[in-house]
């Protein structure tokens, strides 16, 4: 078996290619998490709005997104949407799919973070006649963020680890590139091992980063002078 001896020469040869594909993976994760945070916050706020029909629409949308596989959603966006005249690049599709999918999960995290803010804070805001917008922006969200950090971080790491699913729509992310390298050279050991190590390193770094952010964050919330 030729593949079982580790070749450093081959490792160094393929590393630059895999690292440049890692940029695509990280970019998809970064854009995906920005979108997910935005979507999650929007869903969470709509779920708390006064309009019953809007609330139930979002409720069912979130249920739908959470109960169907990410891959199905990716395929739907990539292969079905063009039939409605909307065709997007693999990266854009991937970002959209990841953002929506994890936005649905994050909306639950944000909702419970908002629910966790003491009732008295809402009452004081109302007694002071603050508008709903000012109440969320100045009073509720600054206090809700800290408890949301760990779960949000975990979902972003989970999203990062799901980016290989985007290889199914031909996005040239790490796993896809490793597979191509492997099949061209008949050696899979080094490229796949490198991909595994890179995922491990990024995940550990991200987990540490989230932990640091949480620890540094003031207990009372974002402080306003």
């Amino acid at each position: 078996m030729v593949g079982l001896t580790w070749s450093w020469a081959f490792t160094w040869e393929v590393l630059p290619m895999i690292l440049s594909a890692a940029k695509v993976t990280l970019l998809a994760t970064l854009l995906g998490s920005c979108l997910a945070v935005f979507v999650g916050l929007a869903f969470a706020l709509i779920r708390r709005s006064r309009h019953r029909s809007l609330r139930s629409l979002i409720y069912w949308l979130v249920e739908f997104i959470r109960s169907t596989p990410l891959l199905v959603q990716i395929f739907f966006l990539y292969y079905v949407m063009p039939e409605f005249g909307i065709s997007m690049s693999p990266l854009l599709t991937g970002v959209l799919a990841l953002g929506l999918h994890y936005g649905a999960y994050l909306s639950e995290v944000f909702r419970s973070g908002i629910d966790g803010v003491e009732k008295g804070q809402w009452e004081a805001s109302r007694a002071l006649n603050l508008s709903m917008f000012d109440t969320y922006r100045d009073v509720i969200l600054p206090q809700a963020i800290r408890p949301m950090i760990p779960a949000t971080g975990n979902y972003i790491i989970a999203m990062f680890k799901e980016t290989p699913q985007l290889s199914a729509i031909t996005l040239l992310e790490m796993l896809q590139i490793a597979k191509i390298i492997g099949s061209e050279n008949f050696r899979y050991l080094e490229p796949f091992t490198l991909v595994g190590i890179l995922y491990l390193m990024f995940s550990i770094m991200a987990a540490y980063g989230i932990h640091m952010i949480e620890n540094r964050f003031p207990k009372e919330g974002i402080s306003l002078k």
Partner: protein
Amino acid sequence: MSSHPIIEFKNVSKRFGDTSIFNDFNFSVKENEIVSIIGPSGSGKSTLLRILMTLEGIDGGYINVNGESLWHMPWNGSYVPASNKHLHKMRDHLGMVFQHFNLFPHMTVKRNITEAPMRVKGLSRSEAEKNAEDLLELVGLADKADSYPNDLSGGQKQRVGIARALAMRPSILLLDEITSALDPELVDEVLDVIRNLAKEQRFTMLLVTHEMYFAREVSDRVCFFDQGRIVEEGAPEDIFTSPKEERTKAFLNAYLN
């Protein structure tokens, strides 16, 4: 003191699920009058203030504040439930101080006080901060402007709570058991602030309290509540020295001895 009622409850009813808090409840307060509400817990005292502050709705009847309906507004010749805009306008008359302070823990003391005047009344930062400094002076906390609420004692927190409510210049001040969450030795510093406000007679004040001596000292009128009804009301001297109702006597005996 004018005799014009600034607060008027007419046949108000309020339920929490199956529990009736008020039924056909009538009550009124005159402008600049200071009214203390005493009574056992669960008698609806706090609910009365919370309804006025629009933190709780009502199930029937009408409430007038400053000559305008609080929970209703005229529409096409009849009265319909108030819109948010109407409630927003009505809340302008009212300010509330809470039992558990409800200060914003992530804001400095100064920001706690300037937040609403800046956001709601559109005051400039410098105007709002000037007012905040004056108010902090008034409650004896001029040196705490840049502290955060969690660095203050309970009594100091509550004095900030009072300053924050006053910053919106309400004509009616609602004080909901404002000393109940305080250590006994901190009660007086808070009551002193209210004493001074009471002397000036610039506000209508409605206070729910368990501090009987204080109620007797500052109030124009004391109302004894039980089970959503005013069992007895009158001048503090009369209520505290010669209550007529058995229920009032029993309550005051338990409290004062």
